[in-house]
């Protein structure tokens, strides 16, 4: 129990310290206003392009993308902020399990991103007058949770990668835009060229977006189990790769003392 409490406290403190949670205004603008406008922008393009009033797939797909922005820009910068503040040395040197540290830091961002998705979806539904009575909200919630898990793993992986480059901003923005372009939220993945289809299948969210579309078309949970399993697998894989990379990076840093130089 004490360990769980310590885990939760550390998660909260890390989130509070690294996110720049200085005042509610900043939080509301960055976590709600800006993402909601992103959602409305892409949905308006979809409405204009496809000349349709059924915007449910685009609203829900783009709402999922909001958790991507949240996790990529939140989790992608956690280690880099430590590096800039000069606290990365203490983190690398501490005896605590790096895996616990890894998960501990990712958890609050994952939970927080859920709020962006829910708020974004609600505003999108109200703005575009979308009727979701046909869809099973419970299943939709499961899809969001799975997507959130997959993107959090991806965010943690990017967070570790950001330790290896000085061009962190470019890396984060490229990953975010890659998800917007290749997840299938704004146009079908099937219309992509072969190479990009392969990249899309390796990225998180493409399966979740597809699952949402299947549910909107009247599918059942049995139709999407495979997709959700695939999404969980991507999440686990990115967490494992990220963790291994963090171990390698910290080992190299211990040997060469170069962690803050790259």
């Amino acid at each position, binding site marked *: 129990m004490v360990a769980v409490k310590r885990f939760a406290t550390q998660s909260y403190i890390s989130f509070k310290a690294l996110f720049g949670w200085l005042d509610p*205004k*900043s939080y509301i*603008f*960055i976590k709600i*206003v*800006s993402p909601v*406008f*992103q959602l*409305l*922008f892409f949905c*308006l*393009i*979809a*409405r*204009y*392009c*496809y*000349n349709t009033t059924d915007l449910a797939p685009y609203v829900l797909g783009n709402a999922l993308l909001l958790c991507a922005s949240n996790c990529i820009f939140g989790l992608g910068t956690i280690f880099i902020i430590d590096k800039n503040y000069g606290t990365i040395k203490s983190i690398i040197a501490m005896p605590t399990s790096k895996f616990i540290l890894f998960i501990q830091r990712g958890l609050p961002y994952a939970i927080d991103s859920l709020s962006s998705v829910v708020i974004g979806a609600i505003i999108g539904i109200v703005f575009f007058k979308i009727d979701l009575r046909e869809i099973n909200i419970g299943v939709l919630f499961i899809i969001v949770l799975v997507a959130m898990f997959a993107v959090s793993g991806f965010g943690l992986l990017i967070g570790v990668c950001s330790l290896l480059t*000085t*061009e*962190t*901003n*470019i890396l984060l*923005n*490229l990953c975010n*835009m*890659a998800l*917007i*372009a290749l997840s299938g939220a*704004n*146009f*079908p993945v099937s*219309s*992509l060229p072969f190479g990009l289809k392969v990249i899309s299948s390796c990225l998180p969210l493409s399966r979740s977006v597809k699952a949402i579309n299947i549910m909107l078309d009247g599918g059942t949970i049995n139709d999407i189990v495979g997709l959700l399993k695939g999404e969980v697998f991507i999440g686990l894989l990115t967490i494992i790769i990220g963790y291994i990379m963090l171990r390698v990076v910290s080992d190299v840093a211990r040997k060469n003392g170069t962690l803050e130089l790259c």
Partner: protein
Amino acid sequence: MNNYLILIRNTVLLQMKNSFARPMFKFCLIFQPVIYCFITYMMYKQSSSQNFTSFVVLGSGLLSLWSCICFSSMGDLERERYMGTLEIIYGTPTSFKLIVFGKILGNTLLGMTPLLISFILAFCFIQEPLDIKSPPLFVFSFLIAIIAFICISFMFMAVFTISRSAGVLMNCLEYPIFFICGFIVPIDYLPNILKSMSMLFSPTWVMQLLRTSIEGEKSSSYYMECLIITCLISIVYLLISSFLFRKMDKMIRISGSLGVK
């Protein structure tokens, strides 16, 4: 007069070098137009009849141009303050507004690169025909666009220098302007309240000018109407920014806190 031109030229060059050194600006300048061009093209392919040049090329180029303005011009003075150089710039005998103008001009000119990238992508890779109904009118509209973007940058720069929430506002102004000003989707598709709001922003009218010159569907009187409104709004922006810069000057002289706000 010559000295002023030299000053503006040097500030423009210095600003271009400084801006290009920043990763975020590099992203907006090089990668963003490519990705936006790709996204808009993929959506365009699924759509019914639309003008490719207006929708994909101009749309993606202007989206990136606005991002460049958002993440450079608007936050430049805040950045100078953070680096501790704002007091030095302010204290030089040269007009502060002239230096600010040079900075904005440098960013805006550099920010035109995404449009060029979009045109090159469309021409070389997508190989869709670039259909511009009136090329001379398009070039003229483009020049008006540069002036209008400089004026709106001036105003936002002044607002953000006075505000304590510059960083937050900078991040939040990107997407709203994208759709309120009709960079991709014409404002006719917006709800009435947003449509009314969009009339207050010069980029909305600039888009009308550029679209009219590309699509050639509207009359010349409509073009003139948009041109006059663009000019009038830009003048209002300049007046507002002049007032705000004067207010800033007064605040600085009273409190002596330029470096800390």
